[in-house]
């Protein structure tokens, strides 16, 4: 499938889902739950651009996500600040602008972290991202303008664009972000960039020797991945209406964005999407029916189980099965059969 066709198709699927759900579901809770699942599609796709395609593990999803959220909080308070200090009146900043700004902020931080650590072995990058989450959290805790450790209340605008309630608006925006993230991931996968990423994942030294500009490619991956995470976080203040460091830097974001691609399969764009829909839905159901602490335990156990038993995720299982079937057919007919495309 050509890229343009895929983008059109993904957009059409997104639009159809939004229209259908907004017509048929009247219960607001559905949109609250679906928003979280969509947010995880963006986060796990973003994680996979770096983790799955180039093989560098990022445990700092929470940091990039929260930076997006906090940049929105700053922009939300900006008109008041300008009013009170410079007597300058500007209109409230619309949410799509905040999403773009959040993406830029997290993208720049991603670039910086990558630049500091990506010349080292992959493990050091992973540990540095863990450290980054704590550094950023400490900065936010000590920053009074955005509420410090007390947190900050965000009042939603009275009326939402695009009709319906504000939560429907947030849900629609998150669907747009999901389509964009998945589209970018698939475009990369089929491009020269994706080939370069795969070369880094398989053997970085050999890739370097073959003339792949590894550092530059890795920096592109960290920037892009960070930016998408920031964009996913930007609408958070309006979703929760109360933003505080402990919940916005929650380790659950990091665990989920690692677990979802691992469970779905890391080599293809469909893996993180599958993982996010599956795990996200299970968690939403478990939160309602069992308890929220227990559903995190389920995620952790699933993560451990999958990396041990099925390291290539659901995609890997499906492909192994296809290969087996192809071989069986081959053996029966005793003539070569075209293998399914990888």
């Amino acid at each position, binding site marked *: 499938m050509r890229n343009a066709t895929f983008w059109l198709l993904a957009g059409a699927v997104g639009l159809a889902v939004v229209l259908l759900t907004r017509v048929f579901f009247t219960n607001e809770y559905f949109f609250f739950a679906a928003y979280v699942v969509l947010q995880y599609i963006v986060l796990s796709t973003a994680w996979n651009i770096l983790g799955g395609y180039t093989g560098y593990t990022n445990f700092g999803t929470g940091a990039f996500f929260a930076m997006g959220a906090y940049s929105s909080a700053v922009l939300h308070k900006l008109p008041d600040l300008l009013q009170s200090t410079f007597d300058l009146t500007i209109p409230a900043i619309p949410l799509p602008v905040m999403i773009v700004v959040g993406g830029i902020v997290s993208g720049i931080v991603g670039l910086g972290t990558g630049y*500091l*650590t990506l010349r080292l072995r992959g493990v050091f990058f*992973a540990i540095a991202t863990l*450290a980054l989450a704590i550094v950023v959290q400490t900065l936010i805790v000590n920053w009074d303008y955005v509420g410090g450790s007390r947190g900050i209340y965000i009042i939603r605008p009275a009326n939402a664009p695009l009709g319906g309630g504000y939560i429907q608006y947030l849900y629609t925006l998150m669907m747009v972000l999901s389509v964009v993230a998945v589209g970018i991931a698939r475009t990369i996968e089929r491009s020269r960039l994706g080939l370069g990423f795969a070369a880094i994942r398989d053997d970085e030294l050999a890739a370097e020797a073959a003339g792949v500009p590894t550092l530059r490619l890795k920096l592109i991956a960290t920037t892009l991945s960070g930016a998408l995470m920031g964009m996913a976080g930007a609408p958070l203040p309006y979703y929760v209406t109360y933003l505080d460091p402990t919940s916005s830097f929650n380790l659950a974001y990091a665990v989920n964005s690692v677990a979802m691609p691992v469970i779905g399969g890391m080599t293809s764009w469909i893996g993180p999407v599958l993982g996010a829909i599956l795990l996200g839905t299970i968690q939403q159901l478990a939160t309602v029916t069992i308890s929220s602490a227990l559903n995190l335990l389920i995620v952790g*156990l699933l*993560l451990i189980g999958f*990396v*041990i038993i099925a*390291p290539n995720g659901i995609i890997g299982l499906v492909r192994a099965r296809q290969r087996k079937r192809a071989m069986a057919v081959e053996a029966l007919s005793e003539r070569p059969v075209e293998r399914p495309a990888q």
Partner: protein
Amino acid sequence: MISLDLLANAVVAGILLGGFYAAVTVGITISFGMLDIANIAQPAFILLGSYTAYIVNSSLHLDPILIGVVMLPVFYLLGMAVYRLYYHAFESRGEQAIQGLAFFFGLLFVGEVSLILIFGVDYRFVEAPYIGPSLRFGIFDLPYRMLIPFIVSLAMIGGLQLYLTRSFIGRAILAVSQDALALQLMAASPTRIKQIAFGISVATCALAGTFLIIIQPVEPSIGRDYIGRIFAICVLGGMTSIPGMVAAAILIGVVESITATFYGPSWAPAVAFGFLLITLAVRPAGLAGR
């Protein structure tokens, strides 16, 4: 004007804190530095040590450090079991990198959530005669709850250093960190040596966890703060060197303590991570690195 008394006390408190950090990090120096296994679940094992001390101390009123010593063999066996699982699932398949990290990350998370489910998020503490009073020594104020972990920690690390440099198995562990293939050619099994070494690295958590709960009340998510700190100290100390690690631990302890005294405790967590990021960027071989 900075008060000199305050500064001197902050430095001494930092040195004591550094001794505790060294006990927390020594396991990582063995598993990550020497065996190249990035065990980011180490804080979960440390917390397991803390909660074991809490359970036994609150029911049997035993001395927490004694509990830590008694638990050493149990943690050693636990570590060996975790290594066997890790070996069969990842090392023998040649898939250490991303899957192995994800495995330990999952362990860390499962450990934390399990502790929350069992004990809740309340702070837990132990009781011992030396928690509370302190030793006055001139202008210095040395709380026993810091002093005793400091001394026991240095004793444990000194013992480990002697074991690694003098005993046969210890030297085999150092050898496996340098060249596993050469060890195989000498008819020793790297896997068995690594299993023993990983067991030791987890065993240190029994004592480190006890120190943690002696020094401060503990709740399940506290372990997270230690991930970056212990890796920062390990990298700063030059990865494989135990004396280098102790020096780095004391350096970080002192800087953190001064930061907490003069700028407020809420800034202290960023110190170690700032150090880590700078070290990784400027001098990845660490202080004592080759």
